[in-house]
């Protein structure tokens, strides 16, 4: 416990993976799936003149036991409805939601409330009771579950230490920072020892540094306690940092799902590509972009952008290109990030033109890149 709470305060170096990607089959079978959506649709009926909404349609996928699965989508994509189906806060219009081999969508009343104790949830705005101290907020689900006072006290102390705020025991939420409030939220969600932790935009109200610390804490909780984590987010950086599995939602449909590394090294759907662009960016530095012209000039360079996808893919590219083709390749701009242990990004290279503006070197470079299956495009020329 102690080591875990210390760990949660350490900040990781940029780009360092939190956990190695594990070999989990994307097609999880019945027994190793923690959550399974079976032919789910969710329709909100027309109400007071507002038309009905199809929030979710034809949802079929599984969340592997012990995984950290990101569900990413723009606002209105159906993320919130999806996560609320898992803990029974909402019922599907059609289909079943199987959590830990039980059909939670079929439960109601007391049975549902008992099942909800094994599913924790954290929220964007923390949702702490302002009238209770940090310790009493964490105690709330235990009181509701009917724990004895002494047991609650011991468990709360344990949880405060786990999330690294043992000294905030008697503080009211109004006296805590955003990050500390979310730590209380996490401790509260874990109080009844759930198997699943649902995170609904839990870091969206936090600054980047606090976000990182909270995501580290969640990664540790997943590793140490084996809790399956489902992350709802609209931020690619959150998925990149924490998730190993990802589900991309758009307009109530799952458009892509699988390992984070696979999905984001070869994004197919435009939505996925736009999320990827948020992290790696596809714009050139202004000073370079302003110099690019359409016509080649003698003694100038052709500007070629190479997409880099895969483990260690870009490491030696420039060196090999220079050596094998004997060219003075210049690196004009580069942006490479790591997603799920895979390199994803782009290099912008300058290839020298002949004295009279000949493009021989450019042709050879493009052929070489295509031979090694690096997608490349010519952006123009610089003097």
């Amino acid at each position, binding site marked *: 416990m102690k080591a875990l709470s210390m760990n949660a305060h350490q900040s990781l170096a940029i780009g360092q993976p939190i956990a190695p990607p594990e070999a989990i089959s994307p097609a999880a079978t019945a027994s190793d799936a923690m959550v399974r959506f079976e032919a789910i649709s969710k329709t909100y009926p027309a109400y007071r003149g507002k038309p009905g909404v199809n929030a979710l349609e034809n949802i079929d996928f599984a969340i592997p036991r012990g995984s950290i699965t990101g569900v990413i989508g723009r606002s209105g994509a159906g993320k919130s409805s999806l996560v609320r189906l898992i803990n029974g*806060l909402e019922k599907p219009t059609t289909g079943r939601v199987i959590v830990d081999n039980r059909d939670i969508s079929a439960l109601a009343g007391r049975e549902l*409330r008992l099942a909800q104790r094994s599913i924790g949830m954290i*929220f964007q705005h923390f*949702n702490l009771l302002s009238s209770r101290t940090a310790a009493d907020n964490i105690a709330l689900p235990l009181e*509701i*579950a009917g724990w004895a006072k002494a047991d609650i006290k011991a468990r709360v102390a344990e949880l405060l230490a786990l999330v690294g705020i043992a000294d905030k025991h008697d503080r*009211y939420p109004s006296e805590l920072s955003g990050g500390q409030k979310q730590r209380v939220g996490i401790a509260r969600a874990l109080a009844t020892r759930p198997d699943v932790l649902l995170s609904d935009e839990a870091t969206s109200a936090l600054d980047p540094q606090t976000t990182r610390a909270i995501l580290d804490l969640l990664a540790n909780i997943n590793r140490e306690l084996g809790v399956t984590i489902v992350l709802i987010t609209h931020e690619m950086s959150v998925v990149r940092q924490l998730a190993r599995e990802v589900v991309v939602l758009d307009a109530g449909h799952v458009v892509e799902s699988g390992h984070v590394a696979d999905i984001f090294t070869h994004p197919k759907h435009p939505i996925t590509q736009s999320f990827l662009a948020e992290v790696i960016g596809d714009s050139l530095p202004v000073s370079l972009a302003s110099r690019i012209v359409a016509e080649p000039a003698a003694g100038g360079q052709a500007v070629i952008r190479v997409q880099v996808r895969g483990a260690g893919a870009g490491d030696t590219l420039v060196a090999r290109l220079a050596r094998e083709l004997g060219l003075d390749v210049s690196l004009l701009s580069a942006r490479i990030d790591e997603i799920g242990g895979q390199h994803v990004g782009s290099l912008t290279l300058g290839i020298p033109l002949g004295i009279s503006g000949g493009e021989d070197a450019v042709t050879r470079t493009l052929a070489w890149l295509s031979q090694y299956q690096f997608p490349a495009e010519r952006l123009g020329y610089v003097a």
Partner: protein
Amino acid sequence: MSPELINLIVQATFESLYMVGIAAALGTAFGLPLGVFLATSRKGELFAAPLVNRVLGIVVNATRSTPFIILVVAIIPFTRLIAGTSIGSTAAIVPLVIASTPFIARLVEAAIREVDGGLIETASSFGASPIQIVFKVLIPEALPGLLLALTLAVVSLLGYSAMVGAVGGGGLGDLGIRYGYQRFMPEMMLAVVVVLIALVQLVQSAGDYLARRVNRRLRHR
């Protein structure tokens, strides 16, 4: 002022406190659950019963629209049924409770509706029953607002209690009318008003203090 008159004022003050105290307690006992229900029974809410909500809302509004002095005389048979008599301080408590219950219910409803809906969802997410949500989330979170509502109700009851002289209810208002106005004793009128002002100040200050004490949203220490 003669000792007899001072004695009258003291006695009337106790009558007022008796009527207002009991009426506030009973009004809260009925008004609090009614207010919580009104705040949680619309479509899609915790105790969803839209039709009952609508009907109760109409009854509450109707009671609140009836001028208090008319209510007092209109329900005399009911008062006699409950209190065994229709005159005196104890009998006066009946209309006071009937008038304050819907008033308190509306104030409670407003205070409960102020509680962030996200907290209800949160408590539901870890398996709290609707009753647990009321007692562990809604009422504690609304407590500052509820205390201010109760303060307002007590102050209003002090005003109402001045009218129950019409059915021999006694109290400060009755004393002011009978001695100050009808017997033309301005000093008696003044004394009654001063005591009432002091009482209202005292109740309001106590209510404000308690509401501030339990409010953890913003701490000024």
